[in-house]
């Protein structure tokens, strides 16, 4: 099994931090609206786990793709990775909607937390000379 590169771990940890912060905000919003209950917490955890797992698998996909010498092979690797990850996310989303233990909105909103975090990535430093642009 290929070793996971430091860049993948670093970005995943960054995304975990962002997801945690935004999850706390989501809980706060539900509390303020007076609609908080345990299903909101469980749904949030479910969605956050799915989104972080998706991001980590994407990092692994990128790592495997850039290791290929032929650009066409790399393209195929990442497209296959994307298809499989979307399937995984769809299963998590269906679970979040159908399982009564999870609040639907709280389970689906965290899916976009990593993307939201990556939008602010250049602003929050982290991209050092060795590991990023």
């Amino acid at each position, binding site marked *: 099994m290929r070793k996971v*590169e*430091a*860049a*993948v771990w*670093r*970005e995943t940890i960054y*995304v975990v931090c962002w997801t945690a912060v935004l999850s706390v905000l989501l809980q706060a919003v539900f509390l303020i609206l007076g609609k908080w209950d345990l299903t909101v917490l469980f749904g949030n955890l479910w969605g956050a786990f799915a989104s972080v797992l998706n*991001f980590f698998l*994407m*990092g692994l*996909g*990128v*790592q495997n*793709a*850039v290791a*290929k*010498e*032929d*650009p*066409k092979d*790399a*393209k*195929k*690797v*990442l*497209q296959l990775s*994307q*298809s499989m990850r*979307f399937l995984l*996310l*769809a299963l998590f*989303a*269906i679970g979040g*909607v*159908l399982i009564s233990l999870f609040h*639907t909105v709280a389970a*689906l909103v965290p*899916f*976009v937390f*990593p*993307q939201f975090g*990556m*939008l602010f*990535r*250049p602003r929050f430093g982290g*991209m050092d*000379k*060795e*590991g*990023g*642009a």
Partner: protein
Amino acid sequence: MLELAIGIILGCCALGAGICMGIGAIGPGMGEGQAVSKACEAIGRQPESKGAVTSTMIMGCAVAETTGIYSLVIAILLIFVAPGLMVDILKSAL
């Protein structure tokens, strides 16, 4: 008449979800593929920049995937949540 209206609602929701996911997933797939093929070419030219390219690629792929995930969430809502809401609204209106 009510059954026909419910059938139309369910059909439209399913059709909308299919179109949403179908079109929404094309962009990220093509974009990520294109980006990684260019990244491979860059690494081929400058192998020492592999770490930097990987890090930037992860960020780029995450941003490129955003629209696909939006589509997925909307499609799931259209399949599982919207029909029930629409049928409830229809029934209360009649």
